[in-house]
């Protein structure tokens, strides 16, 4: 099949196609510039400096994973007592840690419900000081911890401290002793 040669008179710039093409390019650059801005954006979080002093905490939060948290507060005493009572003989520290892990760990929904009720309680008692200890495994991303700290902003009577460590340390060599009103946990 022979190709038909275009005569010079037919060689014109197709204005419609040109406008179409320019319009497509314009849309492309507008969208990419918006997306680049979105991608390069960074979020800012202003948090008060944590107080990392040894002492008592009302609540210990151990981050297990992105969607799993261990929440130890005063209710853990009853939980531990009622379960260790059923076990005969001496209960090891690892057994206590396993009980806590089984009964007091929550997913995000349950965990943040507890955070909300803690915030309400601290707002109701402005003269009472609250201290929360957040423990996060060292190899996990730091936003696991800052996601929690973010919830404590704006409450001057609610302070927090940060520690690094995983639940494995507690299971392996931690010491958990239950006293009348307190739980003493030595992490290593």
């Amino acid at each position: 099949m022979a190709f038909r040669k275009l005569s010079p008179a037919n060689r014109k710039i197709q204005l419609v196609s040109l406008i179409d093409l320019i319009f497509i390019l314009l849309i492309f650059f507008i969208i990419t510039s918006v997306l680049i801005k979105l991608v390069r954006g960074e979020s800012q979080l202003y948090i008060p400096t944590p107080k990392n002093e040894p002492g008592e905490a009302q609540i210990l939060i151990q981050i297990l994973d992105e969607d799993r948290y261990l929440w130890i507060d005063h209710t853990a005493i009853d939980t531990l007592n009622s379960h260790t009572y059923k076990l005969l003989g001496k209960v090891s520290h690892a057994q206590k840690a396993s009980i806590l892990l089984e009964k007091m760990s929550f997913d995000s929904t349950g965990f943040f419900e507890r955070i909300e009720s803690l915030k309400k309680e601290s707002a109701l008692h402005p003269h009472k000081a609250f201290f929360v200890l957040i423990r996060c495994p060292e190899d996990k991303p730091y936003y696991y911890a800052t996601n929690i700290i973010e919830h404590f902003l704006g409450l001057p009577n609610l302070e927090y401290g940060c520690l690094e460590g995983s639940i494995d340390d507690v299971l392996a060599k931690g010491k958990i002793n239950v006293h009348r009103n307190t739980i003493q946990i030595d992490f290593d």
Partner: protein
Amino acid sequence: MAFKREDSPRELELTSLIDVVFLLLIFFLVSFAFSIAGDASQSTAATEIPLPKSSMTQLSLKGDKLANLMIQIMPDTTGSRIAYILWPSYQEEVEMTEDIAFQKSLNDSTFCSFPVNFLSLSNEDFSTSKACSLIAISIKQFVEKEKVFKQNGRPVVEVRAEKNTEFKIMNFILEQCGLYEDRIPQVIFRTAS
């Protein structure tokens, strides 16, 4: 002038038709995506999420300028992390873009890599590593400098890092700030998304 009448049959121009249909499709897709994003942000902002209020009333940021000590943690080619320290200029304010922060810390030689195996190091070895020492010394010097330059100001430390930066590094920075807790009341996290 008489109009010339076209005798050729009027064909539908398929190429232009496809072009126009394609443009319309893109337009509706994009406007639909933006309207969903707009709705979502409006509904959450208006109903559910109360904006967090910081206990601090004074912020040390002036527009988009750096007025604080910035510690920038970036990934290393070896799979580890590098800490870049960016000092605020006390004479003139510094634009705080990521590239300038990076370039300035290179020029000032205030950067240091964390050891490749920093996650397996003991706390003592980690905190005495070069990068940690650099961070600790910088925070200490910053607090001392702020005392001289801004008698009434309160120094704020900023940390810029990717979302998945290990907690071990951040905890060290928070610990160091905690040592001067009466002087550094606030830490700012700038998380690159």
